[in-house]
């Protein structure tokens, strides 16, 4: 087995199947942005430090800059584009971010939303400390974090009121 330089991969993104040939050294983030055309996933540092590229792979939050696209073969991927229930609608997390002014430039926001989504899956009623710990892997240069934490708190309350996650 000498290995290959290219491979065909197939995965599901936001419910839709995608299939294509990728260079084995391409990150999942690059393939999502450049080949699939979903540019909502942002790339800040490209070495695992900032969290902007966070997407859900098989339900777990991962750094898409640290995963090769070939490794996603067969996976279910959720990106920020897949959060909202429909066109012209927002996910409760997105709405709470809007209400709380939890974004300024918005660069970190996709990673924040995807991480918060994963947090609420595991802890539907998180404590403030849990929110801070989970978001500690996401860097924001604008907001000072306070409003992001408050937005996640509000989203948790609203989602519980709606009888579970949207």
């Amino acid at each position, binding site marked *: *087995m*000498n*290995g*290959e*330089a290219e*491979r065909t991969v197939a995965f599901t993104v936001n419910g839709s199947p995608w299939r294509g040939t990728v*260079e*084995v*050294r*391409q*990150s999942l983030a*690059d393939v999502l942005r450049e080949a699939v055309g979903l540019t909502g996933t942002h790339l800040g540092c*490209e*070495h*695992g430090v900032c*969290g902007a590229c*966070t997407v859900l792979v098989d339900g*777990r*939050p*991962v*750094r898409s*800059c*640290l*995963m*090769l696209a*070939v*490794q996603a073969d067969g996976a279910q991927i959720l990106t920020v584009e897949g959060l909202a229930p429909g066109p012209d609608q927002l996910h409760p997390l997105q709405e709470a971010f809007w209400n709380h002014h939890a974004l300024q430039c918005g660069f970190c926001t996709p990673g924040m939303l995807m*991480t918060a989504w*994963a*947090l609420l899956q595991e802890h539907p009623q998180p404590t403030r400390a849990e929110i*801070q*710990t*989970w978001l*500690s*892997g996401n860097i924001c240069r604008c907001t000072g974090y306070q409003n992001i934490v408050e937005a996640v708190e509000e989203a948790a309350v609203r989602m519980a009121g709606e009888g579970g996650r949207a």
Partner: protein
Amino acid sequence: MKPAPFRYAAPRTLDEALAVLSQHGAEAKVLAGGQSLVPLLNLRLARPELVVDINRVAGLDAVRHEDGWVEIGALVRQWDAERDPLVRSQVPLLAQALGYVAHPQIRARGTLCGSVAHADPAAEIPLVLTTLGGEVVAARAGGSRTLPAEAFFLDLFTTALASDELVTAIRLPAGGFQGTAFCEFSPREGDFALVAVAVALRWDAGGRIQEARVGVSGVGPTARRVVEAEAALAGEEKSRSAAQRAGEAVAAAVHASGDVHASAEYRRHLARVLTERAVVQAMAIGGEGVDAQ
């Protein structure tokens, strides 16, 4: 495109993986969780010709309890180990430490064996393995060997692993301690620690410490046990003053060196304070608490 070009192999069985490594080990890199390797690829600090992705190798993702050991396979993610009932009940020190390893998104992919193979001097998992006297199971085509942690970690980012070997599991002694604690200091939550301390204590019915393990990282090229601190605790009643003496023993025994992150003096100070804190916490976990003196 960040990494330099490489070829990619994704073996499905352990034999296949070992065969690839025996042929190409010298120019290959094993890819597990990728949370240390991929940053190095992206920064082009690593330029392997071949990446051997072990994520699809069958049979490496189990946590097992046998013969007094908890064995954690090469594909067990830090995220899963953190939540694993066997780990939490039998190796609570490891469960305590895992919460300090990076962030949830890193732990979702990162493996325990990958952290051990990487041997970052500030990493938590090698510290726990060293403190508890754990072992590393390394396989190569045609055989495997088991190395005690102290023989595995040679220097910073340097282990006894040969290029044709794969870490298939780490093994940690199951149970044995009533009180354990892990304390570290890092400038920001989730960062690598400047200094970390792991403590495990066993005491008799009267509360007298029978056996103590004290390990520290951040004050040398690898994590290490501090037998002087362990000796200072053995035979003592659980008390804050015994914890203080353990902290002083650590400060006296370690040879920290300063770097851009912290001076030698500051690291020594942290080692003392964190040891005292961890010993006090470990004493309290058993339920009896620590008397104020």
